[in-house]
């Protein structure tokens, strides 16, 4: 009896059977090697520069004249994403709605070759406070880099790239997207993915979160629904040139009172709808002292970390997109 219990426990603790077999992982890793670190960082610099000079959102209309809210912008960053999609030969769509303020996500789809009805979503919000280098020009740049790598190389499944609008006001763009669009098989959301600090004590945490003390890992956050997807991420990035990945699984849908900090970005509406979504982040204000301030500027970011996140993102999307 005790041997049976031990066997059951050991099998439960083992890594779930991987959907990411040899050739799929090999392809994913080969594509990830093409990540261009200099281009990525240049995109962050461009996006941050656009935010710096962009017209600000009317903060009085948001019932706040606080410095942060009066330095929120979205329009030129969206145009940058749109133009980049067009330069890749893709035709972006917009889903404008007057949500006070108006929101308009920008999205494109790379149609899958053999399972076009199954969608893998990669998204990042393009609105930002101040220059928003880490939050979230970093995420937008990684999304655009993966779009560049895949634009001429479609996967088995359709890949949808989405620039989400007004995450900062309350996940408006992603919430609208979840309500309006067909459900992706899995979504990967990027928010704050460029700040790294290897010094001990640089990583903040919360009670019950046994995070490392050095803030140089990438957090890959899932809930019970998306747990297998994070297991696949760990599988495909193993031994590759990425930051160490710390997987965090929130219980249930993730909406419990003690795990609320894990729901602070555009993956949350997917979770609440019962969909599978994974969130990549440098943990934002738990690591980056420049979060939501004027000092969130490009030269505070780590180019190597950002490139490593882009590789992890590319590998994950390709693995999910081509998995049997």
């Amino acid at each position, binding site marked *: 009896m005790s041997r049976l219990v031990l066997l059951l426990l*050991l099998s*439960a603790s083992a890594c779930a059977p991987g959907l990411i077999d040899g050739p799929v992982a090999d392809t994913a890793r080969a594509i990830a090697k093409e990540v261009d670190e200099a281009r990525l960082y240049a995109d962050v610099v461009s996006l941050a520069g656009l935010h710096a000079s962009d017209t600000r959102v009317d903060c009085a209309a948001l019932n706040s004249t606080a410095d942060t809210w009066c330095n929120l912008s979205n329009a030129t960053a969206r145009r940058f994403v749109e133009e980049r999609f067009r330069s890749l030969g893709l035709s972006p769509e917009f889903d404008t709605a007057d949500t006070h303020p108006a929101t308009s996500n920008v999205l494109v789809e790379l149609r899958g070759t053999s399972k076009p009805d199954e969608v893998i979503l990669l998204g990042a919000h393009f609105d930002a406070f101040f220059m928003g280098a880490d939050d979230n020009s970093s995420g937008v740049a990684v999304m655009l880099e993966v779009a560049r790598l895949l634009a001429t190389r479609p996967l088995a499944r359709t890949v949808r790239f989405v620039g989400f609008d007004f995450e900062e006001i309350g996940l408006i763009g992603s919430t609208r997207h979840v309500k309006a669009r067909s459900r992706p098989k899995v979504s990967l959301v990027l928010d704050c993915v460029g700040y790294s600090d290897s010094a001990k004590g640089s990583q903040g945490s919360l009670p*019950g979160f*046994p995070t490392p003390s050095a803030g140089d890992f990438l957090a890959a956050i899932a809930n019970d629904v998306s747990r297998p997807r994070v297991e696949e991420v*760990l599988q495909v990035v193993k031994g590759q040139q990425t930051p160490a990945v710390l*997987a*965090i699984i929130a219980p249930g849908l993730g909406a419990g009172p003690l*795990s609320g900090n894990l729901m602070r970005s555009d993956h949350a509406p997917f979770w609440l709808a019962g969909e599978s979504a994974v969130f990549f982040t440098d943990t934002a204000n738990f690591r980056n002292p420049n979060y939501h301030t004027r000092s969130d500027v490009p030269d505070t970011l780590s180019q190597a970390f950002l490139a490593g996140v882009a590789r992890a993102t590319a590998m994950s999307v390709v693995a999910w997109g081509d998995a049997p």
Partner: protein
Amino acid sequence: MKGLLLCAALASSPAAAEASLRSRVTVGLESLGAISLTSARTQGGIGGGAHAAFAFDAHWLAYARAAWLFGLGSHTLLRVGGGWQREGVWRPLLHGGVVLGLGGALDFSVGDRPPSRAPTLGVVLGAALLRFQVEGVTVSALELEAGLSTELIALGPRATLTLLSLGVCLGL
């Protein structure tokens, strides 16, 4: 035959020697909070549960407890063990047992190891010092239990605080 005097207050009863099986069994309800912390899992919450205990004699007993806790999702806590209790109205209990935690938790990868899918296992020692028994009714407050926990990746501390526990002897 005092050694057979069990959950019901039969210590002074002439029926002690014939104590039935029922008089050995106590069932009850309890409110509690529990936490288990390892580098691979945080599991905890507050809630309520039920317990049953079987008394072998006036001092030694075995118990089984099931609780349903909410906080980090919801999880079920199953505990079995045994212990020693003092005879008399003031009936402090010292006990030890094993714990199984099933369900919601915050799970973390550790190095290359993915987050565990195994249940939480634990061993605990406990003390119920504010425990009293009158006429087969047992009341216990602020019972503390502490020990070690694992999800087969890492090892860490665990603790349970039973705020209030009420039990009734079936042989009443």
